[in-house]
């Protein structure tokens, strides 16, 4: 079966002072595609790296991206099949800047409760953003709260 995912790759011109690679992926609001999207991005984010990135580095990217996609699909787009999720990756030397945008109304990240309190510990939901915060080097949101920017190491 043909994949529903199509990744675009753009490289900066060699004359530019720092070499950059830009990846973009537009996907439907389908949680069944999260694993495939994560593997595709993981492969391209670390392509050609010598030595190859550690298992820990790849684990951080995979989990953080899977979380961001699940949040965008389920909470941002409310699993509406008419709405899309867009992923942008900017690869700059030893750093990956990953942006995940949905078409929802956005949320206020400061209002997400702490999931490790005794009363929340046995809850089924609410750990996604908490995990992302611990896995990435830097975390930012746009003003509307429907785009998350995560900075991760590339080696």
């Amino acid at each position: 079966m043909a994949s529903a995912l199509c990744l675009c790759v753009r490289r900066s011109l060699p004359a530019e002072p720092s070499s950059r690679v830009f990846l973009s992926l537009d996907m439907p609001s389908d949680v069944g595609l999260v694993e495939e999207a994560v593997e595709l991005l993981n492969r391209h984010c670390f392509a050609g790296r010598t030595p190859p990135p550690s298992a820990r580095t790849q684990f951080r990217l995979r989990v953080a991206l899977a979380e961001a996609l699940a949040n965008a699909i389920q909470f941002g787009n409310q699993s509406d099949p008419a709405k899309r999720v867009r992923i942008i990756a900017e690869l700059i030397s030893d750093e990956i800047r990953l942006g995940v945008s949905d078409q929802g109304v956005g949320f206020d990240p400061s209002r997400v409760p702490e999931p490790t309190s005794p009363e929340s510990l046995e809850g089924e939901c609410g750990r996604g953003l908490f995990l992302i915060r611990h896995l990435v080097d830097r975390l930012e949101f746009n003003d509307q709260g429907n785009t998350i920017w995560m900075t991760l190491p590339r080696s």
Partner: protein
Amino acid sequence: MGFTKTAKGAGVVVVSIEGQLIVGNRQELKALIQESLDHGDRKFLIDCTRTGYIDSSGLGALVSIAKKVREATGELRLAGLNNDLRSLFELTKLDTLFPISPTPDQALQGF
């Protein structure tokens, strides 16, 4: 990617997570354990030896499964987590909720 269910001695059902436990397949694992509970099984070992990564939906599914097993007066243990997987349980304090053994064999001895 998928789940393999095998029966071990002493009535323990071992469920191996091969690949990812994430938002796209967590319901499958919940259904598999529920089916075993309905069948009368009460002792479960989740083997993560061949697991790649788990997201928060996967962790949430394990919390929900553990609750159901406990309500049925059963027992659920985890084993075979690598350092990365273990760090997710420690960060979220879920290591306080599940008995976690280094290897499946050690977990089986604990039942």
